[in-house]
């Protein structure tokens, strides 16, 4: 009965999450609102567009009741921009995550999507809405990849390829993008070895994380276990007030190995 899966989401679970992403559809038939557990679906009146979760959009698409409007970031020009950014502008980091979504406030201004919860307020109150995060955020503008970009693009190309303009081009661009980012993901393991404590992967995607989760977690935990005695020594020294960083900055990795040797001698 207990779940046999390892700690952390596996790719199938990430795909499940991705199916909650909101997409825009153009209905081809009228459909009354359906009372669902996650709220009523919008009543569909062609040709008015509607927002719905991906799983429902795919169901409607399969039954030829609707067409899916591909998100702005999946356009070939947008993808080419992102690839340009990933390869030329910033060949080290991932392209930045989308800016916080905004919405109209009814007075002609754009405001943050969730401005009833301000970041200035440090402690959220119990009655507050939870701060939204993917997959519940609206689709990002062109030039930014959403958190579930790879799964979303794959699903749309597999089940709604006729709705995606220039599907073949998009496919090859996606492949390029994936390769560029996979190389960065592999490169980021360099910083894991250092044992710096905090590793920031700004702009990484859900599936990229899920793919290398076991490896990354294994490396981080392995480094921690190998360096456990060094870390304890360093903390003791810091507590005494010596202040020196054990092993030094650049020689940190070498310091690790020396310590494990010492351990063996004992």
């Amino acid at each position, binding site marked *: 009965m207990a779940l046999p899966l390892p700690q952390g989401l596996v790719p199938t679970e990430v795909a499940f999450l991705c199916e909650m992403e909101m997409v825009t559809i153009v209905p081809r038939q009228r459909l*009354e609102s359906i009372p669902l557990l*996650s709220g009523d679906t919008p009543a569909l009146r062609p040709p008015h567009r509607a927002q719905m979760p991906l799983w429902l959009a795919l169901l409607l698409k399969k039954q030829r009741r609707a067409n899916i409007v591909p998100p702005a970031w999946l356009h070939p020009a947008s993808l080419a921009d992102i690839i340009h950014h990933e390869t030329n502008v910033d060949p080290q980091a991932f392209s930045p995550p989308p800016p916080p979504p905004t919405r109209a406030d009814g007075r002609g201004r754009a405001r943050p999507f969730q401005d009833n919860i301000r970041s200035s307020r440090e402690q959220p109150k119990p009655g507050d809405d939870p701060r939204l995060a993917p997959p519940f955020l609206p689709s990002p503008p062109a030039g930014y990849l959403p958190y579930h970009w790879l799964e979303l693009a794959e699903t749309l190309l597999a089940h709604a390829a006729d709705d995606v303009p220039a599907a073949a081009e998009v496919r090859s661009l996606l492949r390029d993008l994936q390769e560029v980012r996979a190389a960065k993901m592999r490169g980021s393991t360099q910083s894991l070895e250092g044992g710096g404590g905090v*590793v*920031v992967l700004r702009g990484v995607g859900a599936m990229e994380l899920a793919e290398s989760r076991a490896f*990354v977690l294994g490396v981080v935990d392995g480094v921690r276990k190998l360096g456990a005695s060094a870390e304890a020594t360093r903390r003791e020294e810091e507590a005494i007030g010596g202040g020196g960083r054990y092993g030094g900055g650049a020689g940190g990795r070498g310091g690790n190995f020396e310590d494990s040797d010492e351990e063996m001698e004992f």
Partner: protein
Amino acid sequence: MDIDDILREVDPSSSGLPSETRDLQSLTRVWVAERSTPELLSWPTDGLVERVNGRIASQIERVEALTGDMDPRSNFALIVIQTELERYKFLVRSYLRARLAKVDRHALHYLSTPDLRARLSPTELAYATRHQALLHNHYLASFLGSFGPTLQNLNDTAGNITMIDTPDLENAVFIRLLRDGRVMGKGVDADGDVEGRTGDIIILRWADAKPLVDTETAELV
């Protein structure tokens, strides 16, 4: 949907989330969190799971009522409702099973102090107690009975060595920042200290991430 939801929907200055949508978001978040952490998290205190279970039960009743009439138009609605129902049931089931796996693995640990016991729901507490009693009785009958009475405990802490297996709180996790803020984490060679921005994905130890997750500054991914 109650009157607050309706008011929120027509008020453009609010976020306009109906309570059903909010519950789905909360449920998704607690599920992801429970799947990603090495230790058991607190059972949601606001009655989230009970509320969702109630909704699932009433939705099943609706499905039973709808299957009665053979109207082809309600047929498609039925497919949609059932698909969603299965997704919901998967979420709840996977959440409970992930918790159960942790309770199974470290039953004695979660029963050892009142603080840890408070993390379990009443049914989980009953399950863990019974599970541990059964296990102890079985051990007693099969081999512990032949030892001296001082050697029969499963939760001995003599000599500063505890027999109770605890989850490794220093395991690494992935978090996403929900607001800007400073993130500090312990490391082997040096302690990390990063000025994080909203949306950043960060790898750090669970012990360092827990305060951030508890204050909703970050969520697990």
